[in-house]
């Protein structure tokens, strides 16, 4: 009734071409723990930020400036940091890959985050923040030193750069909180999210749905509405396309290597009982 076909007579198996980027695997537990170098960089970044802010405070205390100016500068920095995180996030989400100079590691990290959005909530703080803290330590220190060396008595300038760096470094923590279950948030964070002071979980969840082309800002999210309503990033994408011919990732069907991995998480949820690890969605709904 049935005949066996010799293997040599079978048609070759058509396999789909390998994805253009390697598919990031789920991070293992050790990769989520803080290492001593990560702690050191986080400390260095924190020290640079505190130094900048304390310079500002001491200038105010010395009477060279009223407190209103550095406070206004800090608020402006908080706003601008939200915009800056959005622009950077848009850039790494849409262009380049692991082999891109300078940004390759970050692009891979963002790709991994899109695949496994909830993993960020398992990262220990220094593990999560060290890359941005390193940037702050390396960039803020010379800027602050240059401001002081120029004889600047502007408390506002020190407050601006310090607050900007603080918001950018902490954006990764705000980002993690935007993925966290409500009941696991530290006290007060949910209120800050609801008030729009920190990026909300609902707003960030909108970014994690295809085609991943909205809600890029991750400090407070205050710029997201404006940027999305006026299609600012789409305009930038069109300009880049017409200037360079390069299409952003968000214009096309999301590659599997950038899509959220719900299959593996669902399968794991069915077989194991670890509540913290087995989340099917990157954003908790409770």
């Amino acid at each position, binding site marked *: 009734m049935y005949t066996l076909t010799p293997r040599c007579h079978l048609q070759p198996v058509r396999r789909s071409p390998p994805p253009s980027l390697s598919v990031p695997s789920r991070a293992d537990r050790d990769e989520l723990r803080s290492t001593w170098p990560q702690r050191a960089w986080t400390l260095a970044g924190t020290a640079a930020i505190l130094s900048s802010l304390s310079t500002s405070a001491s200038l105010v205390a010395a009477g060279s400036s009223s407190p209103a100016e550095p406070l206004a500068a800090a608020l402006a920095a908080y706003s601008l940091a939200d915009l800056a995180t959005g622009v950077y996030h848009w850039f790494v989400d849409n262009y380049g890959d692991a082999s891109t100079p300078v940004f390759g590691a970050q692009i891979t990290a963002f790709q991994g985050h899109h695949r496994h959005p909830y993993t960020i909530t398992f990262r220990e703080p220094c593990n999560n923040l060290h890359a941005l803290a390193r940037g702050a330590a390396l960039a803020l220190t010379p800027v602050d030193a240059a401001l002081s060396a120029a004889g600047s008595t502007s408390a506002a300038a020190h407050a601006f750069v310090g607050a900007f760096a603080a918001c950018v470094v902490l954006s990764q923590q705000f980002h993690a909180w935007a993925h966290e279950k409500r009941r696991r948030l530290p006290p007060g964070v949910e209120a800050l999210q609801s008030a729009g002071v920190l990026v909300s979980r609902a707003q960030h969840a909108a970014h994690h749905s295809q085609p991943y082309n909205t809600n890029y800002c991750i400090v407070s999210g205050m710029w997201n509405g404006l940027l999305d309503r006026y299609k600012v990033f*789409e305009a930038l994408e069109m300009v880049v396309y017409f200037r360079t011919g390069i*299409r952003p990732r968000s214009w*096309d069907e999301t590659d599997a290597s950038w899509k959220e991995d719900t299959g593996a998480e669902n399968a794991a949820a069915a077989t194991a009982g670890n509540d913290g690890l087995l989340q099917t969605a990157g954003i908790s709904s409770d």
Partner: protein
Amino acid sequence: MAFTPSTACCKPSLALAPRASSRGSAARAQAALLCTPSTSAFRGLRRPASAAPAPRWRRSAASTGIVCGKVSKGIVPPNFTLKDQNGKPVSLNKFKGKPVVVYFYPADETPGCTKQACAFRDSYEKFKKAGAEVIGISGDDAASHKAFAQKYRLPFTLLSDEGNRVRKEWGVPGDLFGTLPGRQTYVLDKQGVVQYIYNNQFQPEKHIGETLKILQSL
């Protein structure tokens, strides 16, 4: 702010606001929908080398600062003969005797242009009912148009404006200080006279509603 709605017609395209040149009325910019991503054979690839490079849009300002395209309401635009998606030459004069909607768009397989083309497709019956023909024009070549039309099942003609010659001849204004080819639609009546011009880069679906309204009154 660069994105403030414009209420005058034929204004320099510094703003992303729609511009309508008909009966002096203009639409205000509304919240725009995001484009649906598409599966694309061009994903991850550079723009085909055969495509014309982005031209430097020549802008001339009158003393009042108002720029008007060379083709404006009330005139018969210059004829053109361009290749369609099948490589066949098509002349504008061929459509004399019926209303024609000529829409210039930036490029195939970009979010706004895909939305616009699909919107024209979805309303095509209404255009046919009004006796009108729809023609889309961009700088892409015939092969690109063919793939675009097949993928989205576009029932109308797409023409390849190589070197954006016709776009320049008609004076279609660019956007964002000339970095983007403009998105402008012309409605021609049965005599071939331009009766309406609508410009809106980032709300592409609005072109359909606006032009249908005019067609129904022709």
